[in-house]
């Protein structure tokens, strides 16, 4: 018999935590009640969120919210910290192939103003550093580097450039002007091979000219040397191949989780937890082995619920494909409050979900995967993948989340919207979601309800 699993607010999680402890809950070293992230770290946004009530979700949240703390601990143990920026899923695979290196994305600071509900003042501080609200919330990274109150200052900073967002490129350049040396590597804008031109197959049903793959491979060769120098250990092909296989283990788990949740007749896990779970792919939340454990537990929970017919949304919930990550986590709750559920997502790093080819020389494989980044290619490629995944998971509507100030959102939304409408005839809506969206919640809810109702109306036709 199907049952609807209630979501828990923070107070609900206080009770649930005590209950789980009473049942002998076994936690990882970073475990504990969610409440402590509010009390100790001022992650006030947690008080506004609705969470999944499983021990697997608790572990996911604790893993996410202790990342900075774990990075500081790693530094304390003598490990080297690598800040990797913008490529979302490539350089960390290389870094984690080396002993004693821990890679993370300072870009992730873009969620700090949301989590701390602005109490960190990072966005205001970014403005005082010359980067105002016309830039995307990733500008929070800039003062986070300067004040050192969040993540540890990396021993090496690596940033992809070229075909990347202007916001990020400009902010990273500002960071370098402020005294943080950056290792830049070139990412060409991916294009289709021309007739007669040498071509390579990329993950994600893409192709690219060989010369572009060569360019990325040569650039990653420079990255390889820089990482090896930092680690004091050569990053040879055997070691890198091990790293790729380990990354693929994470990607396979995520693929299974996505399949289990997005393709299911009703959602066994909530949208918010799926967003967080998918984010683990890009740099393993600074701990690759633990990422495997966290995802395996989530997958087991999803499978268990599917077997028992336990869901977090009703079977009537509209199947929504979501494009882009949200600056405010609360928006994912809102989707479900409005009668939707996730039936697929492109959170801007689909190349970090695709398996890295294991039958190629490892750097070549990584170069091809990096070049499959949806953000470095034409918006039509991204739109085509959205269409494919909408079809595969029988999506009934598409929501495109615009990131305030992000240069890529201006054009790509229009192309994705038109492609989806022309190809699938699905309702599509664009929403701009600021880091703390409370004041806009009624407007956001109205728009989400509109797209949900449109999709529901189509069912009856």
């Amino acid at each position, binding site marked *: 018999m199907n049952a609807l699993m209630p979501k828990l607010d923070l107070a609900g999680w206080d009770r649930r935590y005590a209950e789980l402890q009473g049942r002998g809950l076994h936690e990882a070293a970073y475990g504990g009640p969610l409440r402590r992230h509010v009390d100790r770290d001022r992650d006030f946004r947690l008080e506004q969120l609705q969470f999944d009530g499983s021990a697997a979700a608790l572990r996911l949240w604790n893993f996410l919210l202790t990342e900075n703390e774990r990075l500081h601990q790693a530094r304390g143990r003598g490990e080297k910290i690598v800040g990797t920026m913008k490529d979302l899923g490539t350089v960390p695979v290389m870094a984690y192939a080396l002993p004693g290196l821990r890679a993370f994305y300072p870009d992730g600071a873009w969620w700090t103003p949301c989590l701390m509900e602005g109490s960190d003042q990072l966005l205001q501080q970014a403005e005082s*550093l*010359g*980067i105002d609200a*016309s*830039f995307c919330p990733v500008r929070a990274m800039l003062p986070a580097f300067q004040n050192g109150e969040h993540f540890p200052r990396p021993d090496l900073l690596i*940033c992809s*450039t*070229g*075909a*990347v*967002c*202007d*916001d990020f*490129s*400009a*902010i*990273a*350049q*500002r960071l*370098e*002007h402020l005294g943080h040396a*950056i290792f*830049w*590597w*070139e990412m*060409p*804008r991916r*294009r289709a091979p*021309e007739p007669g031109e040498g071509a390579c197959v990329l993950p994600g049903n893409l192709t690219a000219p060989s*010369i*572009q793959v*060569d*360019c*990325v491979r*040569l*650039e990653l060769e*420079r990255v390889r040397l820089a990482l090896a120098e930092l680690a004091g250990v050569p990053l040879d092909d055997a070691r890198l191949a091990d790293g790729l296989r380990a990354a693929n283990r994470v990607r396979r788990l995520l693929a299974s989780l996505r399949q289990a949740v997005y393709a299911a007749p009703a959602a066994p896990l909530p949208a918010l937890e799926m967003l967080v779970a998918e984010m683990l792919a890009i740099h393993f939340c600074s701990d690759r082995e633990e990422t495997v454990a966290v995802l395996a537990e989530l997958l087991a929970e999803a499978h268990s619920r599917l077997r028992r017919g336990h869901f977090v949304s009703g079977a009537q919930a509209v199947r929504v494909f979501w494009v882009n990550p949200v600056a405010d986590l609360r928006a994912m709750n809102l989707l479900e409050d409005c009668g939707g559920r996730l039936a697929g997502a492109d959170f801007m790093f689909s190349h970090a979900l695709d398996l890295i080819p294991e039958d190629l020389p490892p750097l070549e494989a990584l170069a091809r995967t990096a070049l499959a980044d949806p953000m470095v290619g*034409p*918006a*039509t490629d991204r739109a085509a993948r959205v269409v494919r995944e909408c079809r595969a998971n029988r999506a009934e509507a598409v929501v495109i989340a615009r990131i305030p*100030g*992000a*240069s*890529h*959102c*201006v*054009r*790509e939304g*229009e*192309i994705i919207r*038109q492609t989806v409408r022309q190809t699938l005839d699905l309702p599509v809506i664009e929403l*701009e979601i600021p880091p703390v969206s409370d004041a806009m919640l009624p407007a956001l809810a109205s728009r989400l309800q509109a797209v949900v109702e449109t999709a529901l109306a189509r069912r009856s036709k």
Partner: protein
Amino acid sequence: MRVFLASPWIPAEWVRAHGLESEGIWFAEAFRRSTPPLSAGNCAFAENVVQFAESQADAAVVFPTACDQLRRGYDAAVFRSSARAFLFNVPATQTPAARRLYRAELERLGNFLRQLGGTTPTPERLGAELDAAGQVRSALRTIAPFAEARSLARAVARFCRDGSLAEPLPPTIPKGVPLAIVGGPLSQADWPLFDVIAAAGGFVALNGTDTGERILCPTWENRPDPLAVLVDGYFDHLVDVFRRPNTGLYAWLQERLSARQVRGIVLWCFTGCDLWRAEWQTLREACHLPVLLLETDDAAGLAPRDVSRLQAFVETLQ
């Protein structure tokens, strides 16, 4: 066939060597004739380039990948119209791989130009184009420190239009507060800015915009392979905000700001242009000069509010 280039770092010499006419888009007659409707975050310049490309029945437009707005503007132009457009990957770094990519892009552009009716250039033909452009650039570089701003802008515009050199520019004895203008493209419609600055008691001692002296940077080394000369001449001398790191821009600026005793910088920035806008504070810190940010989003020239700001800026520097 006329080919409009939307970046100074896509060599006009290469287009001309293929037997086609080349023109910098900034000075095209139909460019920025009206104010385009802009959605939030849209760069006004990029939108103008897209609309221009879509309106050209008998011409092609080459977009650069130098910024997200133009790169994605190309996506929009080819998605919603049958514009003859080409996206040229201008690398952001100066690594060997990036240099190889730049050369490959020139060869690919050559294929595109041949599809438009161009012919494969002989080394002699390309060499002659390089010589001609090199001579004009050299002449303009020599006169630039002494030329009146509007005259120099006109001469650079002519060079961008057809590669030729305007009549000799008379050296002038400037009066007032020496300023630099740095930033995005300054089209002909924006030239009244020079008059506003003069009326306020200043003069433009350095035009460091995308249509100013920086685009005179490419220089040639005497080598047997003209394509290699072209590649190196541009790739090694590219001075722009999108380069990573963009320290070359600051080295170029500081040398000239100091030599010309500049006392203030006007940062000329299109609304929605993140790359230039983000440099505002760095310009102040690195150049140790006051910086006035002037934003533009239309073809109507400076807004009265900006004229007042500019006047106040010059007044405080007097």
